[in-house]
């Protein structure tokens, strides 16, 4: 490779063949270049009379933003696109973690340059921290080719691969319906919404669109009282009830039994997780003998009532 200073105008910034970095925010880098200069020059290759950036995209963009006219570069004579992309991959990978979207774009580029599925799975997925399976490769390629709205969501919210995988399992049209619902939720809830929705639609044989046209969902989506977060939360709860109808019915039965018993505040009654075990845990706090006695009196009163049995019902 040959060191040279080339005019920034000679660099074709529209050619993103080897671009891996997507992150915004050049300020930090610009400050460092202003203070220390450009310590490590980007690598470029020739393309006709101009140059294409192979590595150092952010550095070049920062220099341009700082108003540099010339850019110190290393010019490689390599012309094989696959080799150049691998160079970009190893240089970037040595210094930082790739985002999911960057990984997807890299795999997509390698794939387009003719690298076989086998090689991608075996040689690229493990160093990218992804399971070495064809299914994961397919998911990443699908992410690379996804609609801009999906890519923006992934870039902004950094969802887990599991969320991305579940989202990509829906049709492009369904994804557009889902994105506003997912945005306000945390990762676990995003995943839960997607999985419950997928399972309900498959189980009942109805498309997402039709499910969302149902009265319950429409009144959530159309509500002017609810914030986006509240709508997302209400839709999540609704989906969970549809996905687990028997569990939901039992939970409702339990709550109704507590209401009928006029269960005293300050004393909690908790079934075992998912009603898997045959018991209810009752707990309360006390700060004195009197408080203790008062709680016991209330419980003794409840113990004499027939409605108590409903707390233990539903166990078959």
């Amino acid at each position, binding site marked *: 490779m040959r060191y040279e200073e080339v005019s920034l105008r000679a660099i074709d910034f529209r050619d993103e063949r080897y671009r891996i970095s997507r992150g915004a925010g050049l300020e930090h880098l610009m400050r460092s270049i202003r203070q220390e200069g450009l310590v490590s020059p980007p690598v470029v290759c020739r393309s006709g009379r101009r140059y294409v950036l192979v590595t150092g995209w952010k550095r070049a963009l920062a220099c341009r933003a700082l108003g540099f006219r010339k850019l110190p570069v290393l010019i490689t004579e390599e012309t094989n696109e696959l080799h150049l992309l691998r160079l970009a991959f190893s240089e970037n990978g040595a210094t930082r973690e790739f985002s999911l979207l960057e990984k997807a774009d890299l795999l997509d580029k390698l794939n387009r340059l003719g690298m076989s599925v086998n090689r991608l799975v075996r040689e690229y997925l493990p160093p990218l921290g992804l399971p070495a399976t064809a299914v994961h490769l397919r998911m990443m390629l699908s992410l690379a080719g996804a609609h801009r709205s999906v890519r923006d969501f992934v870039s902004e919210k950094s969802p887990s691969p599991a969320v991305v995988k579940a989202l990509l399992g829906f049709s492009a049209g369904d994804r557009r319906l889902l994105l506003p619902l997912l945005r306000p939720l945390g990762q676990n809830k995003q995943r839960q919404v997607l999985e419950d929705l997928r399972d309900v639609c498959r189980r009942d044989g109805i498309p997402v669109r039709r499910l969302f046209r149902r009265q319950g969902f429409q009144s959530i989506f159309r509500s002017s009282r609810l914030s986006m977060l509240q709508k997302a939360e209400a839709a999540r709860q609704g989906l969970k009830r549809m996905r*687990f109808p028997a569990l939901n019915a039992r939970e409702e039965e339990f709550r109704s039994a507590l209401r009928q018993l006029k269960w005293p505040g300050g004393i909690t009654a908790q079934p075992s997780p998912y009603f898997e075990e045959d018991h209810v845990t009752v707990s309360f706090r006390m700060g004195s003998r009197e408080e203790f006695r008062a709680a016991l009196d209330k419980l003794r009163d409840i113990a004499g009532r027939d409605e108590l049995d409903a707390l233990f019902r539903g166990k*078959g």
Partner: protein
Amino acid sequence: MIERIFVDRKAASEPLTRRILKNSPDIPIEFVTRRRPIDDRMAAAEDPIGEGKKILWLTRQKGGFVKPCPCTPKYIGCHYFIINSVLNCPLDCSYCILQLYLGPSPVTVFVNLEEMRRGWDAFIRRRSGRFFRVGTGELGDSLALDPLTRTAAEFISYFRTRPNAFFELKTKTVHIQGVLEAEPAENIVISWSLNSVPVARREEKGAPSVFERLEAAREVVKRGFPVGFHFDPLVLHPGWEEAYGRIIERLLRMIPADRIRWISLGSLRFSPALKGMIEERFPASRLPLGEMVPGRDGKLRYFKPLRLELYRGIVTALRRNGGEGIPLYFCMEDGEAWQKILKKNPGRKDDVERALSPRVKGSGSNLRLY
């Protein structure tokens, strides 16, 4: 089914290796010194687990010839021991735990039978005077490879003279030729996993129909062997009660109840990781769509009232069709299920063991063990 055989050079001279190769004249064979080519082949496949099921790997086992069955902690197991003569299975059931437990793995046959037999001798000496159940069908299907290995008859003749062992060959196949050629004994149980017709058809790729399995069981009973059945995994699906009822009715019409040594019941269960695997490898499977919630061991099971309803339906069908005297046990269930459905709570593994052996130990049994 098996498409290629790899032979570990160190195992090439074992008599069992030679027998398997003789019995598979049309399958390409490679002799190798390491497993690497097999792993490469699996890694290169779109479905590495499915690829492993097409490869037969003949090698030697280094130790651990008999192991306790890895029952789920926190649920009541059944004190079972497993012989790992085979690892993995050429069938491809969507719910199979081996996908997760073994990962991409060839179907492996351990061919150093002589050494394995010495290991079994030592194990049996340690348990002398104590009844135990032992089988080969936990990390694979006991008979799926028998047309190639012809080991079933050898196992039977070994265990028929060990009266404190109940030896079980557990299968979904109809490869019973080797069994029929062996001398029957009362402590040798050939057992079949059964399911409803729609579940077997949709979820048990490569397995014969449930009716064919029952036909095979009838043959084996005719030959003089006791049999066992495993309704596992029981699956809730539209019409499940009639579907299982039909199988149970047919089963008890074809097989005399007093020749059925046990029937086990286990509802569908899987870890979240296995659920993901089923969704990936079997996208048409409906198993992950059930109303399943995490249990105490972290595995997903049907919500308990649904599970109990399922068990109750099966037990009722068994009783209705004349199976009330058949010992039943649950696979990986808690005391509540035992108590509510079977009206007994074994509490500990040893109790399950005793419950399954009343006709063997100290109960005025007329059972002869050989």
